[in-house]
C-alpha cells in the first residue's frame, strides 16, 4: 500500500512505481500535498525540458501558475546531472543542496514554512538504464545529505522514484537492496 510521507518528519524516500501513470500520480501527490501544507515543492527532473512530460505533471497540480508565481513550486532542469552522475561528479548535486538550504533560510526569514519536498529523478533514470553503481553512489549522497539535514533539523524530504519493472526482477534483487538501503523509507506507488 502506498503511503504518503508527512513532510513534517522529513525522509529520504524510495518511491517504487510499476507504470509511468503510477509514477505520475504519486509524484504529483507529493507535490500537491506539500503545497497544501504551504511547503515548498521542487520537481527536479532530467526531463524538465520535455514539454509533454512537464505538462502531465503540471496539469495535475492545482493552481500551478499561482504556486510558481508565489515561489511555492519550482520545476528544475537537472538534465546535466545525469551525465555528471555517470562521471561520478557530485558537484551539481552539491550546488542543488546549497540552493535547497538557501531556500529554506529565505522562507523562514519571510515567515513561510521551512519545509521542502523535493522529487528528484536523476537516480530514477540511472536505474532505468541499469547504471546501478552510479545510482547507489548518488542515492548514498542523497542519504548522507538527508542525515546531515536531520542533524540540523532542516525539514527537507527527498523523494526518488525508481522503476520496479527493473528493480523488481529477481536478477536485480541485490541492486534493489543496495539502492533501498540508501533510503530512510521505501514506498510503492499505486495506480489510481
Amino acid at each position, binding site marked *: 500500500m502506498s503511503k504518503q510521507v508527512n513532510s513534517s518528519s522529513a525522509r529520504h524516500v524510495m518511491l517504487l512505481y510499476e507504470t509511468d501513470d503510477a509514477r505520475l500520480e504519486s509524484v504529483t501527490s507529493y507535490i500537491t500535498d506539500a503545497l497544501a501544507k504551504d511547503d515548498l515543492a521542487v520537481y527536479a527532473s532530467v526531463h524538465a525540458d520535455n514539454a509533454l512530460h512537464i505538462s502531465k505533471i503540471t496539469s495535475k497540480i492545482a493552481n500551478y501558475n499561482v504556486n510558481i508565481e508565489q515561489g511555492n513550486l*519550482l520545476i*528544475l*532542469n537537472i*538534465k*546535466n546531472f545525469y551525465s555528471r552522475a555517470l562521471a561520478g561528479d557530485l*558537484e551539481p*548535486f552539491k*550546488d542543488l543542496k546549497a540552493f535547497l538550504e*538557501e531556500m529554506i533560510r529565505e522562507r523562514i*526569514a519571510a515567515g513561510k514554512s521551512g519545509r521542502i519536498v523535493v522529487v528528484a529523478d536523476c537516480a530514477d533514470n540511472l536505474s532505468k538504464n541499469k547504471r546501478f553503481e552510479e545510482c547507489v553512489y548518488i542515492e548514498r549522497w542523497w542519504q548522507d545529505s538527508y542525515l546531515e539535514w536531520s542533524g540540523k533539523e532542516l525539514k527537507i524530504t527527498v523523494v526518488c522514484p525508481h522503476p520496479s519493472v527493473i528493480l523488481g526482477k529477481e536478477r536485480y534483487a541485490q541492486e534493489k537492496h543496495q539502492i533501498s538501503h540508501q533510503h530512510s523509507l521505501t514506498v510503492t506507488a499505486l495506480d489510481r
Partner: protein
Amino acid sequence: MVVDDDVDVLQTIKKYLVNNGFNVHAFSDGQSAYEHFRYFPKEHSLILTDIRMSGMSGFELARKANLVNPDVKIVLMTGFLIQMTEMAKVLPSIKVDGIIVKPITTTKLNELMQKHLLLDDNMEVIK
C-alpha cells in the same frame, strides 16, 4: 570581482578576464570578497561568484553586496540550470543579474561580459 573557493577555477577565470583587458580582483572566500567590496563598493562593475563556498556563500555575498551598492551587477555560478526569473521567485531577497552554469567556458564568459558590461564582439566597451 571573481569569487570562488576552487582556486584553479578562480585563477583560470581571472587570467582570462585580465588577458581580455579587465581589471579583476579575485577572492577565494566570500567573507574576504565582501570585506574588500565594503571598502571599495564603486570599484567593481560586476561580481561573479560561485554559490557554494565554505563560510559566506555566494548567495549571502550577493545579498550583502547589493545592500552596500545596489548598482553592482551580480552573476552567480551554479551547477544546475535555473532561469533568473525562477530564482527571483524562490529567493526574492537576492538581486541577481545573471546566472552562469558550470563548467565555465570562455564562450560563457564572453557572453557574460558582453551582456552585462555592454561590450561588443571585440570586447570593447560600446560607446
